[in-house]
Every structure is written in structure tokens, then in C-alpha cells.
């Protein structure tokens, strides 16, 4: 990191978490939610991706997903491991959220790496991304549990990250504004989690 640019790196980290990574998560879980309509509905929705020319899809994937998520994940690891959690001494709600944000973040690096290996890399190696691929993965109960924890970590990390995004960019300033933002983002967490969990259970 070049000298005196930390402020901009941290702001970029905050921004990328919402746009595009956060938006992508909402889109991704929504698309998966079509699985609740049955195997064919899901295969049709996923099949839409094939209508995009392969080279264009690759460019979009790298710019909108891989590069932002790699930066957000790796820089996030640096942020998480330079903190000294102290919830034992300060057991406040916000301090717990602080720790959970870092804990879910570190877990998500592992989960997403595994998830990409199991799906996108397999696709690159010739596998077909369709209903049966996911159904086979979650037929293993341990894998299903791993995915559920992964989805909940992601929805929490996004919802609580939105809360800190609002603070970090100076949108919510007063204690009362920040409290309202807590309620709104936690409702968002619950709703998005319902979408995500319903989607993964549709493959069981």
C-alpha cells in the first residue's frame, strides 16, 4: 500500500461491499430463489446466462464480481486481523456487531472460495451449472449446513455492512439516525435470509 492512501483504500472497501458485491448477493439469492418454483423454473432462469456471449460474461464476471470481491475479502482480512476484539469487557450490542462482522467476514472468505471451487470452477472444467449440480452438493447434510451458515453469514455481513456503510460515508450521524438504520438493516437481514434459506432448501 502506498503511503497516505489508507483512507481511500478503506472507503473503497466500504463502497465495494455494497456496490457491486452487495448488489450481486441480492441478485444471486433472488435468482436461486427461482428454485422454489421447481427444477425447470430454476434451469430456465440459469439458462438465461447462456444467452450472454461467453467473452462478455467473463468480462462482467471479472469486473463486477471477482475483482471487487477479492479486494473486499483480502483487505477485509487485514482489517479483521488488526483489530483486538474486547466483547468480554464491553458487551454492548454494537461491539458484538463489530465482532460478528469480522467473524462472518473471515468465514465468508473460506466459504466463498469453496463455493466458487465447487460451482464456477467446475463449470470452467466442463460441468453443467443446473439444478442437479446444487441438489447433489446439498444431498450431503454437512454440506447443506455449511451452505446455510454461509448464506446467513453473507446476509448478515451485507445487512450490518450497510449499517456501517451509512455511518462511514456520513449519511447517518446522530445516535437516533443510527438506531433507525439498525432496525432497517436488521429487517433487511431477516428478509434476505428468508430468500436465501428458502432457495437452498429448494434443492434438498
Amino acid at each position, binding site marked *: 500500500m502506498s503511503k497516505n492512501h489508507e483512507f481511500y483504500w478503506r472507503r473503497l472497501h466500504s463502497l465495494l461491499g455494497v456496490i457491486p458485491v452487495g448488489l450481486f448477493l441480492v441478485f444471486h439469492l433472488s435468482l436461486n430463489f427461482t428454485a422454489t418454483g421447481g427444477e425447470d423454473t430454476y434451469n430456465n432462469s440459469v439458462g438465461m446466462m447462456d444467452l450472454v456471449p461467453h467473452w462478455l460474461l467473463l468480462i462482467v464476471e471479472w469486473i463486477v464480481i471477482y475483482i471487487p470481491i477479492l479486494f473486499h475479502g483480502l483487505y477485509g482480512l487485514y482489517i479483521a486481523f488488526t*483489530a483486538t476484539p474486547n466483547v468480554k469487557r*464491553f458487551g*454492548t450490542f454494537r*461491539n458484538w456487531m463489530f465482532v460478528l462482522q469480522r467473524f462472518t467476514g473471515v468465514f465468508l472468505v473460506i466459504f466463498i472460495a469453496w463455493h466458487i471451487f465447487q460451482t464456477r470452477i467446475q463449470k470452467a472444467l466442463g460441468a453443467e451449472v443446473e439444478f442437479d449440480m446444487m441438489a447433489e452438493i446439498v444431498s450431503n447434510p454437512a454440506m447443506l449446513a455449511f451452505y446455510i451458515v454461509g448464506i446467513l453469514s453473507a446476509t448478515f455481513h451485507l445487512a450490518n455492512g450497510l449499517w456501517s456503510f451509512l*455511518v462511514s460515508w456520513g449519511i447517518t450521524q446522530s445516535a437516533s439516525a443510527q438506531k433507525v438504520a439498525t432496525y432497517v438493516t436488521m429487517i433487511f437481514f431477516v428478509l434476505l435470509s428468508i430468500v436465501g434459506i428458502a432457495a437452498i432448501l429448494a434443492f434438498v
Partner: protein
Amino acid sequence: MTTPVETGRTVKMEILRQDTEGGATRWEKFEVPYRPGMNVISALMAIQQNPVTSDGKNTSPVTWDMNCLEEVCGACSMVINGRPRQSCSTLIDQLEQPIRLEPMKTFPVVRDLQVDRSRMFNALKKVKAWVPIDGSYDLGEGPRMPERKRQWAYELSKCMTCGVCMEACPNVSEGASFIGPAPLSQVRLFNTHPTGAMNKDERLAEIMGDGGLANCGNSQNCVAACPKGIPLTTSIAALNRETTVQMFRNFFGSDHMVD
């Protein structure tokens, strides 16, 4: 000296001792005679008069910092039963025993409970936490400050650089470069002052550097721990907005330096 009231009761204390900077630490137990209205400092003074541990071993008197004894100087902060606070205003009657005393380890420990808070004073210098009024001629009166703003700013000015918010913050440590909540709030105070605001951009530029404002992780421990009730997290969020605007100014170019 007045004769101490004999109450027959004692106060049990456990103190984290450290003889040299960076040296080994050890816990020592003490039992001192109880007097009504005691604070942590008077208990420490009792140990100083008779530096013997509760198992009868002679030891060195405990070292700590103190000055005003009325919670305005910030020198006597230490971790008391897990919470950083001032030892002068912490009363023995309100504490669970044994009372555990530790130094604020987020700072370099000089000896026992005495820490070196230099990083806070250096941070205040860095962010120019003052109102520059010197000129080669009489600059005259500055702009007036609205009374309601003055009353509000007074709350921020209560900061005594005690270091409690720094100890409470999970992102402030000897290994991390984060400037910490107290100096940030001072940037807001001096940027609010009508004369101080004339150098607003210089202070913002300092906290937009390495280890600056963006290193805040929003755990909000600072505001929960501040003995003066300073709205530190509101100050940080307000500065976040200021720096967002400043960032766009810097990036897209502007000939407005101050406003």
C-alpha cells in the same frame, strides 16, 4: 494528618504489577484498611504507606499517575474491574471486591499502573487541535460564535485526553496505527470554532491520511466508555460526512479551500 477512622473492615485489591517498560507482569494481592468515602487512589495511597502484600511479603510501592483528583485532568485513568476509568472518581463503595487494577495496556506501560499517553498528545499536534490566532500584526476580533453552538461545542471541549476511549476501542492498539476517537472529536471541535474553521481543510487532510478517520470500525465502545459523555461516535460520523465532501472536492478539483 487526621487519625484514620478505625472501621475494622478491609478492602481487597489485586494489582497487575510491572517493574520496567516492556518487562514481565505479575498479579499482587493487597488488603488495606477501609475508610468511609474511599476512592481507588486513597486505597493506592494506603498501599504506598505500607507496601506489603496480603500474604505478608514486602514489595515495592505501586506506581500510578494522578494530578487533579477531580476528574478533569485525565492522568489517573486505569482499568478498574475490567473497565477503563479515572481512579480518582471511582469510589470503593461502588466496586465489587477484590478490586482488580490494571494499566491501560493499549498504551506503553511505563511501570505498574502508569502508562505513556504520548500518542494522544502527538495526535493532537498532528490534527492541529488549536485555533491559530498569531499574526505579525493585530488580527482583531474573530467572527462571533452563535451561543447555541458554543453550548454544544462546550460538550466536545470537555475531553481531557484521559485515554479511556483509546483503551476501549478495539481498533486502537500499539500495533495498529488508528489515531483513535478523542483526537478525531477534537478535529470536529476546532473545525466548528469560527476562527478554527479557517484551517478546516488542513485538519481534514490530516485525518484523511494513514491511520486516520477511516480506520474506525464502528464498535461504538468509545462513546459507551467516555467518562465525560462526549458524543464521540456522532463526531466521527459527522467527520465522515465532511471528509466525503472533501474527498469529492479533492478528486474533482475545487478552488474552495475552506468552504
